[in-house]
């Protein structure tokens, strides 16, 4: 690395991320809490079916997609953008270029999530899985993403260190990926709908490319940035990482068409083959991660390192569940059962949320230039999340397999099949409660941090308000 005289200090880079990241993470934390709370509301229906019999807004079929979309669009994506922006600034060794854009983008994005959630709860959803938000929110989210991407690309393009980092591959690809799939899916399903079951094919294509590929690109991209930092040693095998990148996007993008779907046989067959081939990037990612962290003398103690290690392991496991779902015989058992939601929740909360939260806890101290208000919460949240995920994902996955095996036996009445899964909801709802509790701790940290920072700004007066970046530049 060339040390030139106008080299910008690390704290200056971090400080430039402060407002955009607070805007992205603040809303994300709120949506995570609300999303998890709504998913508990949804699961209450299984404990007491007539609970919301008179309330259209809280009926299961509306609350469930609203909760899922809040976790994906409300939490995962903005939080991912925040971490991505900070990694770009750090890798480029410059402050964020056009810092106003991500701030505006974050606010438009969160507005889009509000609009979309109200659309679903009021019964105006599009009816397409993971695309329920409809036109209004679509325009807002896409605009927000474009504004964000301009700033992110500008920061990337102005990098001092021209050599590409492995994470660049994953994260830049993610920046290109989202607008393409989101615009294409909305165009063909909502703006100018296609006929018949082609709608379902496009929806599956979109959902897989967002929930599996996009989250994997960002999550693994971030993990490949943070893991070497924590372990204090370089990433194991650069070329294997690029190999994992190429195979992940080439094979991963063809997954997602369920077996037995009412579409011509070549569509699910293509997905099955692609899913089997996914084992290649998984092996590569597992090998890189293990070789990078194995034997490193860094204690993680429930801190960010633990988060990212757990998240990477969860990625491997949830992807294996995805592959299993595409296996011709296993898919017959677990198709249409709770195994599918278990896999999705594991992907969203076990892999992605955990990796991003780990990144968040690591970068936030630097960005804010101060310690977290409640540093112990980090560790508590880690354990709450792990316990919650084991209960939620484990119980739903087992319930799904049991349900599937009973469904395969036509002699077992459908009511008996359903009631066999009811016991699992006790565990899964407990798991959701633990996750909600954990997300409260996350929200507490970020909101108190934001409040303190704003209070500090007010205290240091008009002058500080004019130049807030300099005021807190001194690193504690």
């Amino acid at each position, binding site marked *: 690395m060339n040390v030139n005289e106008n080299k910008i200090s690390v704290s200056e880079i971090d400080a430039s991320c402060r407002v955009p990241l607070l805007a992205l993470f603040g809303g994300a934390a709120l949506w995570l809490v609300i999303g998890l709370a709504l998913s508990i509301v949804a699961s209450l229906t299984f404990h007491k079916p007539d609970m919301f019999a008179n309330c259209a807004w809280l009926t299961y079929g509306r609350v469930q997609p609203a909760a899922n979309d809040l976790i994906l669009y409300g939490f995962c994506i903005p939080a991912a953008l925040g971490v991505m922006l900070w990694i770009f600034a750090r890798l480029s060794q410059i402050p964020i270029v056009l810092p106003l854009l991500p701030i505006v983008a974050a606010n438009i994005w969160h507005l889009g999530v509000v609009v979309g959630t109200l659309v679903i709860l009021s019964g105006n959803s599009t009816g397409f899985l993971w695309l329920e938000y409809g036109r209004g929110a679509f325009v807002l989210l896409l605009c927000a993403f474009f504004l964000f991407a301009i700033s992110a690309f500008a920061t990337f393009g102005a990098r001092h260190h021209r050599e590409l980092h492995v994470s660049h591959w994953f994260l830049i690809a993610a920046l290109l990926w989202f607008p393409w799939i989101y615009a294409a899916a909305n165009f063909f399903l909502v703006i100018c709908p296609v006929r018949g079951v082609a709608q379902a094919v496009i929806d599956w294509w979109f959902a897989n490319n967002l929930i599996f590929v996009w989250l994997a690109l960002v999550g693994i991209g971030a993990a490949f940035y943070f893991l*070497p930092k924590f372990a204090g040693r370089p990433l194991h095998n650069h*070329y294997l990482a690029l190999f994992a990148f190429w195979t992940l996007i080439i094979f991963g993008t063809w997954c997602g068409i369920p077996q037995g779907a009412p579409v011509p046989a070549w569509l699910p067959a293509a997905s099955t083959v692609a899913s089997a081939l996914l084992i290649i990037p998984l092996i590569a990612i597992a090998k890189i991660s293990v070789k990078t962290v194995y034997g490193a003398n860094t204690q993680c103690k429930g801190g960010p390192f633990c988060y990212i290690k757990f998240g990477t392991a969860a990625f491997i496991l949830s992807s294996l569940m995805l592959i299993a779902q595409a296996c011709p015989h296993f898919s017959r058992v677990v198709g249409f059962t709770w195994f599918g939601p278990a896999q999705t929740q594991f992907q969203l909360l076990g892999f992605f949320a955990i990796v991003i939260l780990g990144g968040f806890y690591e970068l936030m101290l630097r960005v804010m230039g101060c310690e977290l208000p409640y540093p112990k919460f980090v560790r508590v949240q880690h354990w709450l999340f792990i316990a919650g995920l084991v209960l939620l994902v484990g119980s739903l996955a087992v319930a799904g397999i049991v349900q599937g095996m009973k469904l395969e036996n036509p002699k077992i009445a459908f009511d008996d099949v359903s009631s066999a899964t009811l016991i699992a909801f006790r565990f899964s709802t407990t798991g959701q409660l633990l996750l909600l509790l954990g997300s409260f701790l996350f929200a507490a940290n970020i909101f108190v941090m934001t409040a303190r920072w704003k209070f500090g700004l007010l205290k240091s007066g008009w002058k500080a308000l004019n130049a807030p970046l300099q005021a807190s530049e001194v690193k504690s």
Partner: protein
Amino acid sequence: MNHDLSNSKSQTSTHLTVPIWIIALMLTLIFLGGVYFDHHSGWFDAKVYGPYQSAGQLAAYQPLSGEAAIVAHGKQVYEINCGTCHGPDGMGMPGKAPPLAGSEWVNAKGFHRLVEIPQLGLNGTITVKGQPMNFPTGMAAVGSAMSDADLAAILTYIRASWGNNADAVTADDVKAVRASVGGHHAIDGDVELKTIPE
């Protein structure tokens, strides 16, 4: 946190090569995947849905055997080619074509005449159920371009529907009659028709 994230040493990564075994594993899986796809995809055929594995297998499982299937097929071909004049109910249409339902020509024991009418066409007066009829346009040789099986299916259908009750006509029967048909002009009313053996 005791380590600096901008540590330049860990920004770079070690440059080992991709292990050969993972590439070999990938190529093996691609090969096996290709075999699986070959067996299960129906090669992009829009009509092949799993568990059917190919267009050929799907065609084999069409319920098209037995007389019921021939009658059903005959109904389909009849309604496209004959129904516009003879009517989907076989009652014929004034000024266009005589009825087939209850017609002694249709219910005849033999099928020679019945094959020759569509094969050659028919002009002039024809007496059906004791009533002489004359149609200005006559009947073109609509059956001459049909396959033996299609014509046989139509004849089987009209001989088994609307109260008619006569034996089926097979494709071989049609083939045999067609081979023996003389001239290429339309049959001239029931005068000429009666010269053809039943």
